[in-house]
C-alpha cells in the first residue's frame, strides 16, 4: 500500500526474455526511490540483463532517483548487460545532462530505439547464447 502523497507507479513488461521494460509514473525522489529500487532488484534477481527505463511520465527526479539508476547501471555492467533511459521529460533530461549520467547511460527516444541498441550491444558483446530471443 503506498504511503506517499504522490505514489509511484512502476509497470514491468518483458519485450524479450532478458529485457525488462519498466514504465515509471510519478516523482522519482527520496520518498519513492526505494520502491523503484525494489522493482529493479526483483528483475535482476529474475535474470534480466537489460533494463529499459521509460521515464516519459516522471516529471521530477532528484539525486536519490539518479542513484538508483546508477546502481542498476553498475550492476548491469558486471553481468554484462545494459541500462537505457527512454523519453525522459525535459526536467529529467536536464538532470541527466547536468550530472553527466547521460554520458554513460544511453538515452533513447523510443522503446524500439532502445531495443535496437540492446540488440546491437548484445551483438557487439559477441555472446550468441545470450541473444537467443534477439
Amino acid at each position: 500500500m503506498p504511503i506517499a502523497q504522490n505514489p509511484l507507479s512502476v509497470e514491468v513488461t518483458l519485450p524479450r526474455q532478458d529485457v525488462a521494460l519498466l514504465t515509471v509514473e510519478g516523482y522519482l525522489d527520496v520518498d519513492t526511490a526505494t520502491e523503484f529500487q525494489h522493482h529493479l532488484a526483483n528483475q535482476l534477481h529474475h535474470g534480466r540483463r537489460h533494463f529499459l527505463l521509460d521515464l516519459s511520465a516522471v516529471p521530477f527526479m532528484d539525486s536519490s532517483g539518479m542513484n538508483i539508476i546508477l546502481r542498476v547501471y553498475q550492476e548491469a555492467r558486471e553481468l554484462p548487460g545494459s541500462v537505457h533511459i527512454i523519453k525522459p521529460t525535459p526536467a529529467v533530461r536536464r538532470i541527466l545532462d547536468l550530472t553527466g549520467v547521460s554520458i554513460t547511460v544511453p538515452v533513447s527516444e523510443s522503446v524500439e530505439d532502445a531495443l535496437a541498441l540492446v540488440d546491437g550491444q548484445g551483438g557487439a558483446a559477441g555472446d550468441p547464447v545470450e541473444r537467443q530471443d534477439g
Partner: protein
Amino acid sequence: MSISEHTHDGDPSTEIANVPRESPVGRLAATVERLSREVSRAQAEAEGRALIELAKGILVERLGCGPAQAARQLTELAEQSQVTPLEFAVDVINQAARDRMSEVAEAFLAATAAAADEQAAESAAVRLRAAESGALAADDTQAVADALLQQALLPLGAVAVAIWAAGSDGSLTLAGSAGFSPAEAARWRYVPPDVATVARSGLTGPEGQWFMSLADTGLPSVGRHQYPHGGRVAVPAGTGGRVHGVLEIAWPVPLAPQPPQVVRQVEALAELCAHTLETRMPAPGAGLEPRVLPDAAELMDLADGLHDPALVLVPHLDDSGNLADFLIQHVNDRFLDPAGRPRAVVNGTLLLQAYPMAAGESELFQRVERVYATGEPFRARRMNLTALVDQVPLSAVADISISRHGNAVLLIWRIEDETARLASLLQHAQRLGRIGGFEENLLTGEITWNGQLFDLYGRPETSTPVPLEQLPAHAHPDDAVTIGRFLRTVMHHRRPASAAFRLARPDGVTRHIRVVAEPVLDTDDRLLMVRGACQDISAQHWTEVALAATRDQLAHTEQQASERDRLTLQLQHAIMPPAQAPLKMDGLQVAVRYRPAETEQLVGGDWYDAVVLPNRLVLLCVGDVAGHGIEAATTMVVLRNALRGLAVTGAGPGQLLSWLNIVAHHLTGGVTATAVCGLYDPSRRTLRWARAGHLPPVLVRDGSAAPLPLVKGILLGAVPEARYEEAETQLAAEDTLLMYTDGLVERRDRSVEESLTQLLTTVRTAPTTLDQQLDRLLTYSRSDTDDDTCLVGVRLG
C-alpha cells in the same frame, strides 16, 4: 385647553381611567369624554347641530365672547369661507382637538382635494366627526354600530357593520350590528373559539383583512347570504396593544382596493369601537369572561409552583400608549437563563432587552404580543429560541406555553428534553464524523440509506442504494477478501462484524471506509435485516499509516538518531563553520557560506573549499555528497581532504576530478557525489575549471549573470573510470564568480533551469560587498527541499 370648562359642568366620574392623557389614544379618550357630555345634551337634536354647538363652545373660549356672539361669528366666518356652517364647525373642532380623527380627516381632505372633489372630501370630514359624535352619544355598542353605519360607512358605500367582542378564549360575541337583519344577527350572536370566520381572520394582524369579495375567502360570516359577493373588511379594534374585538364592515358589491385615507379612517373607527368595547359589560349569561382577574402577585405564586421555567410578563407601554415591550415582572426559581445570567439580572428587565433575539426569527415576542392582545393562549412544541450571549446567538429548542391572566402574561418554556437532544446530537455527530447509516431488509430487498451514506458513496440521493452483497463490486479488488469475510460473518454466521476497505466511487475518488453491521433476527431466528453504518476514515487511515511507518522508523533508530544527528552537525560545523571570515589576498576576495538543513537529521554532505596552493594557484571547489546523515558527512570529509591533497600535485581540475572519482568509487556503500573544481591563477586572472555532475559556476559581470558552459563530466563514484572536460574563463576586474550546491535552487515544482533564472535575477543587482551578496542569495533562495546549501563567492578587486 378644555372646552368643558366653558360649555358645561364637568363630571369627573365619567372620565376614562388608565389611559395616559398625553398619548394620542389618551387624548382621543379625553376628547371622547368631552364630546360625550356635549352630545348627551344635544342627543335629541340633529348630529350636525351638536357639532355646531361644540364649535360655538370653542369659539367662546377662543374669542372670549358670549355664546350668541360666537354663533354669529360662526355663521359669518362660514359665509366668508363659503362653506356651510356645519362644515365650518367641523373645521373648528378639528383644529381645536388635533386628535387622530382630525388627522384622518385632514389627510382625507388633502388627498381628495387634489382630485378636485373638495365637496366630497369635506363632507367626509363631517361624516367622520358626526360618526364620532354619534358613537359617543350611544349608550351601548349596538347604538355605536348604528351610528357608525349611518354617519361614516354608508357614505363609503358599505351597507352593514358588525362589532365583535373578543373573548380571551378566542370566541367572538356580536356586540352590535347594523344593516343585517335581526334574525341574522341573532344567529351570529356567538362564534365559538377556533371557528374560522371573516371576523376572526381580522385578528391575525394589526392591519386586519381587506377582502375584495366574501365569496373568494370561503369564510362564513354574518350576512353572507345577503351579500355573497360583496367586499368585507375585518379590522382589529384595540387600544394600548390589547385587542378588544373586531370591526367588520360589509359592502354589497366587490370592493376595489381602497386609498390609504379610507384605510386609516376605518382604523380610526375600529379604535373608536375598542373604547366602547373596553367599557362594555359582558351581557348576563353570555359571559364566560373571567370576572375576577388574578393580579400579577397571584400569577407569580402560580409561576413559582410550576416545575418548568416560567416568566410573568406585564405590558410596558411607550409614551404614546402603544405596547412597546413586556416587563419581566417575575421569573420562577426553575428559571434558567439560556444566556446563563443570574435570575436577579433578568428579573425586572424588559423582555426585548433581556432577549433581543425574541423579536427575531423565533417570533417569541410576536407570540407574547398576540396572546396579550387576543387572550388566546399559545402553545408550541420545539420552538427555536435564540439567546444572545456576548453577541453570540445561541439557539435552543423549547416547548413554549403563553397565556394571558388578567393584565399579565405567563410564559413557560421547557428546553427540549434529554432524549431528543441526544437524538439530535447523534445526527450531528454522524454528520461530523462522516458516518452513513443503512438498513437492508433481506426478505423484501428494501434498502434504506441516510443522506450521509449517499455522500460517502458519491451518489445522488435519488439513486438506488447499493446492496451489501454487491459491495465488492464497489471496492478496490484487493479488498475483496476482507469484504467477503465481513459479509460471511454478518450474513452467514449472523454476528456483528466490521471491516475496512477502499471504496471506489463512480467519480474516481477512492475513500477508505470502515463498515460496521449487525444482523437483525426475527422471532423465528431467521435473518430479517442487516443494519449498520459506514464511516469515512480516509484522513484517519493515512494518519495511521504514516504514524505506523514513523513509529517503526523511530523504534529502529530513536536511540542512535539524535546522537548521530548531533555528531554529524558537530562534524560539519568543525569542518565548515556556517560563516567564515572572508579570505583576502591580492586582488581577490573569497567569501563562503554554509547553511545546514533546517531539520537536524537532514544534515548532509555539502562541502566547499577555498585554499591557496603551494603553486600560488587558488583551489576553489564546492561539492555535494548524495544522501544525508553521518555516511554522507564522512564521505564529504574524505572527498574534501582528498581533493586538497591531490591539488598539491599541481594537476589540472579535470585530472583532479578523475582521481577524486576513483576515490569516491572505491568508498564502501557506492556513494555518489557531485563537485565543481576550479583553479584560479591570480597572475593571469584566469579560472580553469571542470565539473563532475555539478551545476556550473555563475559569472556576474556588469550587472548581468550567466552560468558558465556545461562542460562534460559525470558525477563522482558512478563509474570506475571517468574523464572530465576542462574549460578556462578569463575574468576581469569587478567580476563575481559564484559556486553553489543545489540546495540553493532545487525546487520540486519547477525545473533547475527556471530556478537558476530566478537565482540569476537575484544576483544581477550586486550589492556593495561580496558578503552582502552571499547573504542575500541565501535569504532570497526559493528552494523548498530543505536541503543543506553551500555557497562560495569570488570577487576580483
